[in-house]
């Protein structure tokens, strides 16, 4: 049923570190690669090599600029389903295809029940759901439900494909219901935050803010180092080279 569980035993989700993400899109590609051959129908593209490529993806990396002038910094911003505690996409579903699991809080679509009305995608404020252009059913992040419990995989691989592949460790996977889990601790230490809390969705996934030091200003070389490079303060062999070159 599309009733939301009062509480879930575990709250599995992701932490995304906006300070560390370099915007390489490896998580986007590995997500597509895993999920096009994993849970449910394949993730279709239309005109992938044509003039207007389009298709269903479960994870997308946006690029933003924050701040003004010299202090402005680029922030790469991966976005996928936040597996909300109060998921509006689930309750609007008329067929019972969308559901939130009581066991671990993962929000899933039972594709065999989905009639492709698209109402859940409208209800999601984050744009986390995309209609599959070929299968005509709703697609969304499954938190790689077919990896994380998969005993046929080596234990290292039993985490979502995006987390496993991230080359900068900008993504963490864990149980937010456990206050001592890796994700709970990181969120507490680094001030993890919710996206659009005013929408009342209570997202499980959290984001870590970019650090204060970022931006061109942070890269400005202190004046004493600049002075050290000016010829007046050169001495020894560097001073001789400087003089010799200046005379040429």
């Amino acid at each position, binding site marked *: 049923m599309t009733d939301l569980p009062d509480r879930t035993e575990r709250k599995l989700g992701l932490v995304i570190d906006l300070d560390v993400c370099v915007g390489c899109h490896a998580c986007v590609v590995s997500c597509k690669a895993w999920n096009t051959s994993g849970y449910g129908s394949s993730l279709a593209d239309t005109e992938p090599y044509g003039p207007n490529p389009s298709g269903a993806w479960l994870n997308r990396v946006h690029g933003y600029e*924050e701040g003004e002038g010299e202090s402005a910094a680029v922030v790469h911003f991966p976005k996928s389903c936040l597996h909300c505690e109060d998921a509006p996409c689930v309750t*609007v579903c*008329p*067929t019972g295809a969308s559901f939130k699991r009581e066991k671990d809080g993962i929000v899933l679509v039972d594709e065999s029940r989905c009639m492709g009305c698209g*109402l859940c995608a409208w209800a999601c404020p984050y744009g986390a759901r995309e209609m599959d*252009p070929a299968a*005509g059913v709703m697609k969304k992040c499954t938190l790689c439900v077919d990896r994380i419990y998969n005993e046929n995989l080596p234990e290292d691989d039993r985490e979502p494909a995006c987390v496993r592949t991230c080359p900068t460790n900008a993504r963490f996977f864990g149980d937010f219901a456990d206050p001592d889990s890796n994700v709970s601790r990181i969120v507490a230490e680094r001030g993890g935050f919710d996206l*659009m*809390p005013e929408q009342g969705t209570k997202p499980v996934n959290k984001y870590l803010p*970019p650090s204060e030091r970022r931006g061109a200003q942070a890269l400005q070389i202190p004046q004493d180092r600049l002075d050290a490079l000016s010829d007046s303060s050169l001495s020894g062999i560097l001073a001789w080279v400087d003089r010799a070159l200046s005379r040429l």
Partner: protein
Amino acid sequence: MHPALSIILFTTLSGAGLGLGFWLGMSAVGSTFQLTAVTALLSITLAGGGLMASVFHLRRPTRAWRALSQWRTSWLSREGIVAPLALAALFAHAVAEWTGTQGSNAIGLLAAALCAGAVFATSMIYKQIRAVAAWSSWLTPSMFLGLAAAGGAMLGVAVESVADQAGNAALIGAIALNLVAWILVCSWWMRLDRVGMGTSDIKSATGLGAKGGVRQLEPPHTGSNYLLTEMGYSVARKHSAKLRMIALLTGGLVPVVLTGCALQWADAPFLVPAAILHLAGVGISRWLFFAEARHTVQLYYGGR
């Protein structure tokens, strides 16, 4: 939001058909057996046709029957259950009237309640979506109910007028309902202009902004995608003022004037064109209802 033709037809035709069913069930129209039968047929055809049109919106229409299952949480499911029940009750009412069965009035009242409930459920599908601030207001159900009542009344007096049975009280009622409905539409538009995308902005959407402004630098994909075609619709804003005026004139003002003329010159055929124009105007306003409404996902793509 993407203004899908199937959904515009569905909400416009079903709204008017169910509105007509409401007035029929309340015995406000259908003064003779024949008129009851014709009115019931028109109501069921419009509402049923609208429901059929809505099925074309589905990517997997053969699974539409599953939509009857989630009435506990889903307004779309509730709508899918109540609307066919309303049509069945209207049919039963018409048969009861025709055969002179006792309790026909009670069946009529039940049908009226179900018709109103179906329109309300349709409107709640939109009202419940917080991500679309323009829809997320009690003005949305008020407007849907108001337009359905007005459309039903316009159709009702049009059918009566064909048989020279349109009474002055019904005509005045239709004028009043039309005025109320379009006042609600105008209030809805004024609210839309005020709320925009609601309290969410690019800062709350990204959690950034501690250092100042947040701007989109590069989108996540070079082509279009489902999110942009479905929720990034922005064509309407260019002509919205003109289209609102056209909707208001076609759906409200001209039908009201024509109905007024019918009060004066009872023999002339004013009411059928008035009802058709009204439906066309509602259709345009419904196109705007979708096209002008903005979804918070636009924030992630640099929308303001």
